[in-house]
């Protein structure tokens, strides 16, 4: 401070003031330089170290885009590779009203000042709605409403097929709509066979991200669906993808293909026969038909009624169900809600897999199992005799036979089975004993699940309240239970349990685990999984099984199941007419069924056909309006004969006719016109016809019947050698009520031919013509074939 002129104040330095400045500055240093920053370090530590993971996870969640890549769902095919379910790409049509507004704004920006320069018209909501409405078939008003919303995403149409989608794409291009209308790809499941095997195949629910809702689609969901892929990309705050940043791919794995044991053709036969029977017999509660390979347990066909089209599972198509819906609709007291409830109820009914979801009292079909058990245990043999007075008394309870007094009288075992005689089976059950009887219930698999790969089988073992517990059954009081169980009443089984057990009876005694999935293959066709026949256990010996087959063949060969007889095929089986809880309460409700197998010596197919509740003509009547006697033998067996005949023909099983059958077999008449007399005679005789020549020429000039007609072998063929063929008409006689032999004779006298309709056992003396294809009194040409349907209404089972 030398040489500087000091002012008076600083010459007397205020030491106290300086000290204050010094200390206060030090305080500021301590506060702003140190103290203030300590909590900030603490804060950084808390966020960056302590809560690091939480914040990092949240940051990553918002920084990445997770786009899913749809996997293609696998196909479902039948045993022959016929496609039953397949997926295809379809498109959802999305409109973005906000983008539409900016599309309009852009046009305005460009052209509003000079509309004459515009290369295209200003996109207007009305035009777009009208255009899309035309392509998509959606209401214009609805589209207009969507377009006026304040959003980026409004669904205009769902699951539109490629052709329509292409039209939309073109429409968007033509009208310069850019991203205000766009397509979002998704998949749709197609079922090329419509309603075929609906309850088995099931369907995928588009409302639940295309996951399987029922049947195989649901059961094998994981296999079929494949693995949805993911693309994880870094994204910016505005939602756009971050370029040159990380990207993780998780490839989508397409679903595997599912090969079923079902055979579409057999399935079709089963469904057709089911429908036919329901129509013929006025069946009220539907029914089912299962066909199975008895040796392997493979399910060949599995038909339920009512059924539905897999392509529109919510639509009710079954006539019986629809009729019910109509009643609700027309009922003035039932409102919208009642209808919705009814609709949902009907939908559930058609989706229901009756043949596995429902249990029923198997009735006489169950006798096949009792027979096997009794033979195996030696309780009875082919020489055992049973006397039937038309009823049996068990513990003071009188149980009547289907044939009322005087009953079946004395019968051997085969006759008792053929007659489906209840008193005889009560005796058989008692000889077997409750203890052993119950063992066989277990061994034949009636107390647990069959293990079939199908939805809806109870996994409980035993399922409560379906079959008596062992201690109750074997107790002294259980004697009536044993009695009813012996003819298949009082116990509840599932259809699949019964057909599986019946297979064991006839296939050599092996209880097979039934299955529907044959193989699973990956998209390249490599087999991933394969189902092999699985034997659960041997229940009866091969010898017992063979004896059962013989006895059961007798049921069709003249027994209660004779309507299932098909000339040329050896068919065995057992009829059943089950009582139900309803019928015991006095309400008409009978379940008619037929358990059949063929060929009897080496069964290749076993079927179980059931119709639930044919409607009697009047309350309490045993006949339907169309005159059918309500019983398994008259209904189910009749249909089963036709079904088995179809299946065996399809399977290529060779026919072997007996001599009598041969005379009745229809043979096609060869066309012999233009042949020499010699050749004509030889050809006709060779085909199994008798020949009558009319005229003197060398060449056949006409013939009766004409070539191509199908008439019974052994019939007379008339060949005209130059002589005039009579052209007069003959009148069709009445052959109704006549047996086949009588009818043939009468028709032949009129120059007409008989063709036996159906596949029923028309050889039976009891079978009489119920109807004829050409009405009585009609004038027809000579040689016309008249087809008659024969029925035997005297049978009961």
């Amino acid at each position: 401070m030398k040489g500087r002129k000091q002012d008076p104040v600083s010459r007397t330095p205020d030491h106290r003031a300086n000290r204050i400045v010094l200390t206060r500055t030090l305080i500021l240093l301590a506060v702003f330089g140190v103290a203030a920053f300590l909590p900030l370090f603490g804060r950084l530590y808390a966020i960056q170290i302590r809560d690091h993971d939480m914040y990092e996870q949240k940051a990553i969640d918002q920084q990445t885009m997770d786009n899913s890549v749809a996997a293609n769902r696998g196909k479902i095919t039948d045993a022959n590779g016929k496609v039953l379910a397949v997926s295809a790409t379809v498109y959802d049509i999305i409109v973005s009203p906000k983008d539409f507004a900016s599309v309009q704004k852009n046009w305005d920006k460009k052209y509003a000042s000079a509309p004459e320069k515009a290369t295209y018209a200003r996109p207007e909501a009305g035009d777009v709605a009208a255009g899309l409405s035309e392509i998509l078939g959606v209401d214009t008003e609805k589209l207009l409403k969507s377009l006026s919303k304040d959003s980026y995403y409004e669904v205009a149409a769902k699951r539109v097929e490629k052709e329509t989608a292409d039209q939309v794409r073109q429409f968007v291009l033509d009208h310069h709509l850019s991203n205000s209308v766009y397509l979002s790809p998704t998949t749709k499941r197609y079922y090329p066979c419509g309603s075929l095997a609906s309850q088995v195949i099931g369907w995928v629910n588009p409302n639940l991200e295309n996951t399987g809702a029922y049947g195989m689609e649901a059961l094998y969901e994981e296999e079929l669906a494949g693995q949805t892929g993911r693309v994880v990309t870094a994204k910016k705050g505005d939602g756009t993808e971050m370029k040159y940043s990380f990207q993780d791919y998780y490839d989508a794995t397409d679903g595997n293909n599912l090969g079923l044991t079902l055979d579409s053709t057999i399935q079709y036969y089963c469904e057709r026969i089911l429908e036919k029977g329901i129509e013929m017999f006025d069946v009220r509660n539907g029914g089912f038909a299962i066909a199975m390979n008895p040796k392997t347990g493979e399910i060949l066909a599995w038909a339920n009624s009512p059924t539905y089209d897999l392509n529109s599972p919510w639509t009710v198509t079954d006539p019986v169900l629809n009729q019910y819906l109509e009643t609700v609709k027309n009922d003035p007291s039932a409102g919208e809600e009642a209808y919705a409830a009814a609709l949902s109820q009907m939908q559930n009914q058609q989706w229901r897999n009756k043949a596995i979801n429902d249990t029923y009292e198997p009735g006489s079909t169950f006798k096949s199992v009792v027979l096997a058990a009794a033979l195996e245990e030696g309780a009875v043999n082919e020489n055992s005799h049973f006397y039937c007075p038309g009823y049996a008394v068990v513990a003071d309870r009188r149980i009547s036979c289907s044939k009322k007094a005087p009953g079946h009288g004395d019968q051997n075992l085969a006759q008792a089975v053929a007659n489906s005689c209840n008193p005889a089976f009560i005796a058989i059950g008692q000889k077997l004993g409750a203890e052993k009887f119950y063992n066989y219930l277990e061994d034949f698999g009636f107390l647990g699940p069959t293990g079939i790969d199908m939805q809806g089988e109870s996994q409980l073992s035993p399922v409560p309240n379906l079959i008596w517990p062992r201690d109750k059954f074997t107790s002294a009081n259980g004697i009536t239970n044993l009695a009813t169980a012996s003819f298949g009443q009082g116990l509840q089984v599932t259809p699949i349990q019964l057909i599986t057990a019946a297979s064991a009876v006839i296939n050599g005694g092996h209880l097979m685990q039934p299955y529907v999935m044959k193989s699973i293959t990956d998209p390249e066709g490599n087999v991933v999984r394969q189902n092999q026949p699985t034997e659960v256990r041997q229940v009866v010996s091969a010898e017992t099984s063979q004896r059962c087959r013989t006895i059961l063949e007798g049921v069709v060969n003249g027994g209660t199941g004779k309507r299932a007889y098909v000339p040329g095929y050896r068919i065995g089986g057992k009829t059943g007419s089950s009582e139900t809880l309803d019928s015991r309460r006095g309400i008409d409700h009978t379940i008619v069924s037929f358990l059949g197998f063929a060929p009897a010596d080496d069964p290749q197919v076993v079927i179980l056909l059931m119709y639930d509740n044919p409607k009697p003509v009047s309350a309490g009547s045993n006949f339907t309006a169309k005159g059918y006697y309500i019983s398994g033998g008259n209904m189910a067996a009749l249909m089963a004969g036709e079904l088995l005949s179809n299946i065996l023909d399809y399977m290529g099983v060779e026919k072997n006719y007996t001599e009598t059958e041969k005379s009745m077999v229809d043979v096609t008449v060869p066309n012999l016109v233009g042949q020499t007399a010699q050749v004509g005679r030889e050809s006709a005789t060779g085909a199994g016809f008798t020949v009558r020549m009319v005229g003197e020429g060398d060449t056949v000039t006409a013939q009766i019947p004409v070539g191509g007609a199908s008439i019974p072998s052994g019939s007379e063929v008339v060949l005209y050698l130059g002589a005039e063929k009579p052209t007069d008409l003959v009148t069709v006689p009445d052959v109704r009520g006549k047996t086949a032999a009588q009818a043939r004779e009468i028709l032949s006298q009129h120059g007409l031919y008989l063709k036996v309709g159906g596949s029923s056992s028309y050889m039976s003396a009891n079978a009489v013509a119920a109807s004829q294809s050409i009405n009585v009194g009609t004038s027809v040409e000579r040689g016309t074939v008249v087809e008659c349907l024969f029925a035997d209404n005297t049978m009961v089972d």
Partner: protein
Amino acid sequence: MPKLKRDLTMEEQLARGPMDLPFLMLVVLLTGIGVIMVFSASYATALNEGHAATYYFIRQGIFAAAGLGLLYVTSKINYQSFRWMSVFVLGFALVLLVLVLVPGIHTNRSDGVKRWIRSIGPIPAFQPSEFAKLGVILYFSARMSKRGSEKKKKFNTRTLSGTLLQKADGWGFTELVPYGVILLVIMLLMKLEPHMSGTILILIPAAAILFAGGVRLGWFALGGAAVGGLLALTMTGYQSTRILVWKDPWAYPKDGGYQIIQSLYAIGSGGLFGVGFGQSRQKQLFIPEPENDFIFSIVCEELGLIGAGLILLLFVMLIVRGYWIALHARDRFGSLLAVGVTTLMAAQVFLNISVVTNFLPTTGISLPFFSYGGTALMIQLIEMGIVLAVSRQIPAPKQG
């Protein structure tokens, strides 16, 4: 031709003393790191806005270079001349604060806030409040340093008013009146913008200067209570929402909470070592204007606790050195200048980091040397230059 040393006046000689190198090095270091971080934080925004990736970086770099030049020039000035300049700076700042309220001069913002004077010709847009800070620091320091030299006023104690005035003067009230009036005028003008954070950043260094200058402590209690009361009164609507957002930002992901949530995500994902320089993902349009007030969260994300902690430490060292210069300054004016500038910077750093870490409710306070903003950076560097000018005149320690 430079003057010979013997021809220089005493002041001129002193002004040629050595700058405080540690302080200078810290300033240069922080400015350098700051500009680089602006590059990292801004390029995504720049690209998104259709600029080149280096758009903000180059502009900030130019301002930093110019600012360092101004720093040097300022540091060469004999700071005693700031005494007379201070009046004009403050007056100029007040004029600007009035002008900014005039439509057509301030920038047009959608929210109607008038904080910026728009760019006119070559002059970039700037906030007059930055000048006000400087003006207040300069003027208050200058006035406060003369405190001890002022004559005691005499009042006529025979009148009542005279007695009261005598009493007030005894309590040290009268000397505070000019400071109070200036602050009130500034607060009023800035309330009209409105600009609360700017007001706080003027009040804090002003209070620090008065505090260091020796004003009775009781007045601070009174002033603090008054400002607190005013704050409480203005806590209506918009302001009180801030408190709610601060308490639970996730409850307000749309209104106000968004920024703070994104900031926390950025800081949190940094962890100990950070995701690496330039690797921030939160700057990819998640944090709005990441080169601005929230640049420190990008620093935390990219450089981790270690990097952010080091930068924080550099700030602490700079602040401590600033007070150190104040303690060693040649005279009280120098001390108070250093105290004012240092406290201003400390407050700004503290408040900015408190906001990005959600330690305090959100206010728009930028981070010195880091946040993008040319004029602010230049003025900050000029302020640092003032401290350096003070440091030049620190008497050399006696030898031996």
